């Protein structure tokens, strides 16, 4: 087993233990607990918080991927060309909106709970994927496109068999950016009553219980790092298979 894989196994087991058997870590967190307070977060099961956190991220990201890729395909077709300059401006300026602000602004419209978090994650998640897909589809090597036309592929075949596969690594970079931001924003989502791991951190901040803060922070941090790593690996293997750098 390579050193990187060994490290991955250790991190995954640490994460599983933190989520499923938090009581094992009680001695470690003990010194950070104020007198009389609980050492290990026990108001809700950490497993249910983790699943709900990941569920919200997955749902919002899948929706964002579908919408972003479709929109990027539309604006890079001849019929949608008129929208291309504006789309670039929107993708560029839209990403300057702080994700927290998007989350807070969704609350007046949708109330508290998972709703505004989902919508904020979805809206914010679209932009990096949209931008990267647009770049990927509009910077394809002209020689390849000429060859695809030359062998008689229809527009639809060119899109599905040539353009999208070639743009895939860039699309995946966008997905990775978007998912990492979504994991972070979902954590903050617990301030608007979404059922996520941020709840543990917030509970710790409100009661000055540092062990909660550390526990929540560690779990959500490990999830983020592992998912980031997995998506990076996926991207690398696809690049390798496509033979592009």
């Amino acid at each position, binding site marked *: 087993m390579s050193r990187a894989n060994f490290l991955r196994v250790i991190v995954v087991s640490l994460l599983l233990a933190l989520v499923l058997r938090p009581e094992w870590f009680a001695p470690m967190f003990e010194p*950070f607990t104020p007198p009389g307070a609980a050492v290990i977060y026990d108001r809700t099961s950490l497993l249910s918080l983790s699943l709900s956190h990941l569920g919200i991220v997955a749902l919002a990201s899948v929706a964002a991927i579908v919408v972003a890729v479709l929109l990027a395909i539309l604006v890079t077709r001849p019929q*949608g060309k*008129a*929208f291309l*300059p*504006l789309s*670039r*401006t*929107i993708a*560029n*300026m839209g*990403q*300057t*909106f*702080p*994700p*927290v*602000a998007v989350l*807070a*602004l969704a*609350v*007046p*419209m949708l109330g508290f709970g998972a709703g505004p978090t989902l919508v904020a994650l979805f809206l914010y998640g679209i932009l990096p994927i949209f931008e990267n897909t647009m770049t990927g589809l509009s910077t394809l090597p002209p020689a390849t496109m000429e060859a695809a036309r030359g062998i008689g592929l229809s527009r639809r075949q060119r899109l599905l068999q040539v353009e999208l596969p070639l743009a895939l690594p860039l699309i995946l970079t966008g997905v990775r950016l978007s998912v*990492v931001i979504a*994991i*972070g924003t979902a*954590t*903050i989502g617990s*301030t*608007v009553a979404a059922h996520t791991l*941020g709840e543990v*951190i*917030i509970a*710790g*901040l409100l009661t000055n219980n*540092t062990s909660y*803060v*550390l526990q*929540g*922070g*560690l779990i*959500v*941090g490990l999830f*983020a*790092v592992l998912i*980031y790593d997995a998506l990076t690996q996926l991207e690398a293997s696809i690049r390798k298979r496509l033979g592009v750098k």
Partner: protein
Amino acid sequence: MPNRIKSIVSGPGLFFTGLGLVALYAPFMTLAANRIVAGEGVPVWDVAGPEAVIPGFAGLLAGLALGLPAAWQVLRLTGAMIGIAALIWLLMEGSTSLLEGAGTYARVSLGSGFWCLLAILLLLAADALSSLSPGPKMRGALLAVAIVVSAMVLWSGVLTDLSIFREYASRQDAFFNAAWRHLGLAFGSLVVAAAIGFPLGVYCHRNKSLRSAVLPVLSFLQTIPSLAMFGIMIPLLAWVSSAIPGARELGVVGIGFLPAFLALVIYSLLPVVANTVAGLEATPIVTLDAARGMGMTRHQRLIQIQLPLGLPVMLAGLRIVLVQNIGLAVIAGLIGGGGFGTFVFQGLNQTATDLILLGALPTVILALISAITMDILVELARPNKMRHG
């Protein structure tokens, strides 16, 4: 659409004008009995008497209609400005007339119709601008005009009847404190990160093994969700303050400004270091060889060749940091670090929408202004032949 029409009518213009006509039916403003309860929507034609609504409505329609032509971008831009002026006029007249006899605690807020129309008009303006693609100096001038005009509208007091300005009026001092704190967090951490990151980037550029050690660690840190990072800073600094003698006297405490500041510095390092390395690497090898042939030392090559050529990429790194920090500084509000986040989270706790807006809108505007300014600087830093427009 037949091609003749297609070349006359702009696709995005038609799309947004259509959306704008639909948005006219959405509630333009809301009237509520107090600052907490949900308000009742008022359509745009009912916000005031006909003598105020008719010119405003006409202005809106004109603004939307002028967005239609495919050519004449300046006219489209002017149209969007007319539309936005009409929006402000309607808000001004509407807030006064709706509050008349509505009770002391009554509040008028901005409705979904207003927000949609504002977004549509701004998108029309953005579409016209991106077709014009003005050069960096022109963009700077346009940004300055936009800021001055908005400041004049805000300062003139014509909008003070709106609920968000009532929220502002009752906490003016706190607002300016929060603004300074927010700027201090965002720009201060940028300065510290640049002071650490530039030298580190130069060393990483020279030393491949240092680079392969530093960059993965920094991108790992970047991945950690902000709330976790801010949270973990608290015990860390509390420990430093109790374990190292004299730290507490220097103001190292676990809660407030410092943990937030430190978290922002950590997040800022990756873009600064990575873009410094990328910027230094951007110099073509021929150029470097020529410089070496002229007898330039490594130091001279760095200062006279690599830094000027890499400047746009390094500035692009600073743009990422600045925009990111302005947004992340909102989280400081959760750990007592101050800034606009204080209002956002207070507003969420009280379910007072306009207090959330009082925190969120300045943050968004600050981020937008910074992004546009930095984009202009990046373009100005480019060598002449690479600059376009």
